[in-house]
């Protein structure tokens, strides 16, 4: 597995979060997740302005062999979606932490960092899954 970006937070559902300067949070799926799914063919994105609850469905990523829900790691409202994924879902495969971002969320409450993982913790979590 490639190195995990150090400035992100991670979830057990293999999603990553990046705090932006404007208070919003960018969310995507990890390199481990995209590699497990295989070549992505379709991403179903939420509507901008839609409210999502912590743990609720937010998007769907579909590969040639599976479709997987992307859950909201925190509550908030959808501030932006990565429209480019509509025509180019494989951006998630090629650049999961960059051009393959999925949504930007405006948190309704604070971010409970205790419920999220640091890069080191997530690396250990993934290593244990692979054992």
């Amino acid at each position, binding site marked *: 597995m490639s190195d995990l970006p150090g400035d992100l937070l991670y979830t057990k559902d293999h999603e990553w979060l990046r705090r932006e300067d404007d208070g919003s949070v960018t969310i995507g799926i990890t390199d481990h997740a995209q590699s497990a799914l295989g070549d992505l063919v379709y991403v179903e994105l939420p509507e901008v302005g839609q409210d999502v609850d912590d743990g609720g469905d937010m998007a769907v990523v*579909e590969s040639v062999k*599976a479709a997987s829900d992307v859950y909201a790691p925190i509550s908030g409202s959808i501030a932006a979606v990565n429209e480019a994924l509509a025509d180019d879902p494989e951006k998630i495969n090629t650049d999961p932490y960059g051009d393959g971002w999925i949504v930007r969320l405006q948190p309704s409450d604070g971010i409970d960092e205790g419920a999220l993982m640091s890069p080191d913790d997530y690396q250990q979590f993934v290593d244990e899954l692979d054992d």
Partner: protein
Amino acid sequence: MPFIPHTEKDTREMLAVIGADSTADLFDEIPKELMIEHLPHVPEAMNEMQISRLMRQRAKMDGSPMCFIGAGAYEHHIPTAVWDIATRGEFYSAYTPYQAEASQGTLQVIYEYQTMITELTGLDVSNASLYDGASALAEASLMAVRSNRRVKTGRIMLAPGVNPIYEQVAAAIAGAQGLTFERLPQDAASGNIDFESLPEGKEPVAVVVQQPSFAGTLDDVDRLTDWAHAQGALLISIVNPTSLALLRPPGQWGAEGADIAIGEGQPLGVPMSSGGPYFGFMTCKQKHVRQMPGRIVGRTTDLDGNPGFALTLQAREQHIRRSKATSNICTNQGLMVTAATIYMSLLGYEGLVSVANTSHANTTLLADGLCGIAGVDRLYDAPYFHEVALKLDRPVAPILVALAERDILGGFDLTSTVGTDALLVCATETKTTADIETFIAAFAEVMTGG
């Protein structure tokens, strides 16, 4: 002889392992008020000899009357070759086999079917069929809600001509999922949509129109399609496949075309047999394909560059998406689809046009003849395809009984549907001019004598 391989001992041992006393205990979680002891109208189990005897008796009761009933199921000539081929061992299954790609012939039939249905409806993609036309409306309504996520009302607005049974079935299936079905206003003279009093601001998620309508009329579907799109709704069309040989396909309605086309496939080579079987068809624009229920077969090339067929877009389906699948529909009507594909292949474009033209001409002959009888008139002033609603100056039921005594099924009693004494008649290409004259003469006799 039950088709269950377990002996009583097997069953006892298995129950002991999981700690249950009886098989019935396994259904404990179903609330008592939802359980029924026995199904009304369903007799006790019979053995094969008893069933065969019962079926022979029932078949004899059918007789061989001349049928002028349409109302959703239509008698058409089915070339003998259709079912000779469809019942060959290689095709004789309702399902796509497991490891479907090993059965290239089955997949090719479905692929050819999809191609023909998309050509008839003028839309981009077809699935491998649904149960029937009525449940297809439920599936199309649920699909519209998934595809038109911007609209949250769950409101489906139906043109006055939508088959009332389709509405009941759709409401039964989709009603508990928050969908509501409402009718658009009707113009009394034509029976069609009253465009002058269409409601604004109701935010329907989809608008449904049936062409030809349940009463046989043709509506201004272009205008309705444009209105639906202006309201932010998807347009679902319910169409008769035979009529599409003559009428403009839903994909070309209005400025942008219908979004989803569905209908009953029975007229395409499936016999009318004591209420079934039927099959539903469904096509849609490419942009809605990921919300479409059911299976889709695609054409591809193998490693050596040879053409082949494969199930595609399976991530929508229940074996992958589980509870979030677009539907629990699979390919349950595959055998009817096989027959329909062979039927369409044998008739070809010209054959289908000929069936449609002859049916229209026969229905015109019939309706004109019947309207020449005192007390009979057209119910609606509107163009029609192969079915016409007539109003009578007296109750319809006794007329139909008297005609049945003359071995004629004289039409569908519309009285409870339209709230006035009315009858829906249909004459397909299976009727000769002599048949139609016989019917008209019998009708005149019953009206004057009765």
